[in-house]
């Protein structure tokens, strides 16, 4: 099936293929919405992760808190944000990390109207990605 949304730069559209790839990773992330699970995870991350049959590279991205890596490997932001919340990182600070801008520069960009749509519609407008 043709995916007409694949040419949007800096974006993963969480479609059925990504959902399938990221299933166990995302189920791990959502488990952290409950305090008892956060406590268990924080006491021993490796042991907690053993309960979720995710791919080794997904597990590694969790342990390293590789926020973009998690998305590349099928994670969805609403799930990975639960891992971030466990670490005390809110949505805006997480965006600061994922964009590589840093928290302050990202917040400043938002205060000045956000990232412009101009030059950000198509992958061909970006030098990388």
């Amino acid at each position: 099936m043709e995916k007409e949304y694949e040419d949007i730069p800096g974006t993963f559209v969480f479609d059925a293929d990504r959902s399938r790839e990221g299933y166990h990773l995302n189920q791990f992330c959502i488990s952290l919405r409950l305090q008892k699970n956060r406590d268990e995870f924080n006491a021993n991350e490796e042991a907690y992760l053993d309960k979720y049959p995710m791919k080794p590279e997904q597990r590694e991205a969790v342990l390293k808190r590789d926020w973009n890596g998690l998305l590349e490997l099928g994670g969805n932001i609403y799930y990975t944000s639960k891992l971030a919340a466990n670490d005390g990182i809110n949505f805006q600070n997480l965006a600061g990390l994922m964009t590589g801008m840093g928290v302050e520069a990202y917040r400043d960009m938002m205060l000045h109207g956000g990232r412009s749509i101009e030059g950000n519609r198509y992958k061909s407008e970006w030098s990388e990605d």
Partner: protein
Amino acid sequence: MARITAGVGCSHVPAIGVAMDTKITDQPYWKPVFDGFVKSREWMKKQNPDVIFLVYNDHCTAFDASCIPTFALGAAAEFKPADEGWGPRPVPVVKNHQKLASHIAQSLVLDEFDITIMNEMEVDHGLTVPLSVMYGDMGPDDEWPALVIPLAVNVVQYPAPTGNRCYNLGKAIRKAIESYEEDLNVVIFGTGGMSHQLQYKRAGLINADWDKRFLDLLTEDPVYASKIPHVEYLREAGSEGVEMVMWHVMRGALDDEVTEVHRHYHVPASNTAVGHIILENKAA
């Protein structure tokens, strides 16, 4: 008979809830966001709906990846605010008009909208933030002034339902409500948006021109607006901007011609453009 008198479109940014819960709405960052809801709260007092039909999306809170219903109607007696990873919001439990919800569920399926029925469900910021901004501060021991029937729409896993499907669902919801015998004033909310992208390297995208055009179309040419394809939301309004399809459910439940009584638009709240509109049926 029950009747739909008005529709409310409203963003549901979680940070707006946090700002209210931590009492920082007067800070310079937040004041312009909340100033736009002063008139809305007066309107809500005057409008005083018996029931709010609230279209929202769950953000991987009550629904995990194991089951992804496109449309899920809340039929439980009540819905508790969920712990989304930072503790439940300190707001009232949401109470349903359970008999009307059951009637709508039955009517929709016979009308060929094969919805999922939820008899157990917690609700996240997608549902509670619109109630908070429209009613003002309410503690966990208070009661929301209206009963609430939630409709959760999948907008997390692509594809969300099309704008056209949402618009027609709105019409079926209206038909269901207007065939219910009790005399009820029902207001319908469509929530989410406006332009925002929370993820990866394009995070922070805002497209105010596109958002304002969307609000114009919603009021003046809703059928045209309902035909906007998914890829346009994703590209022009950000990957999470596709939440705006839910506003078409609200719009579909109203008259073709409506009166726009209030509009508010502000950038930013956290990562998001805040949009808000109040539309009244002319006969109301």
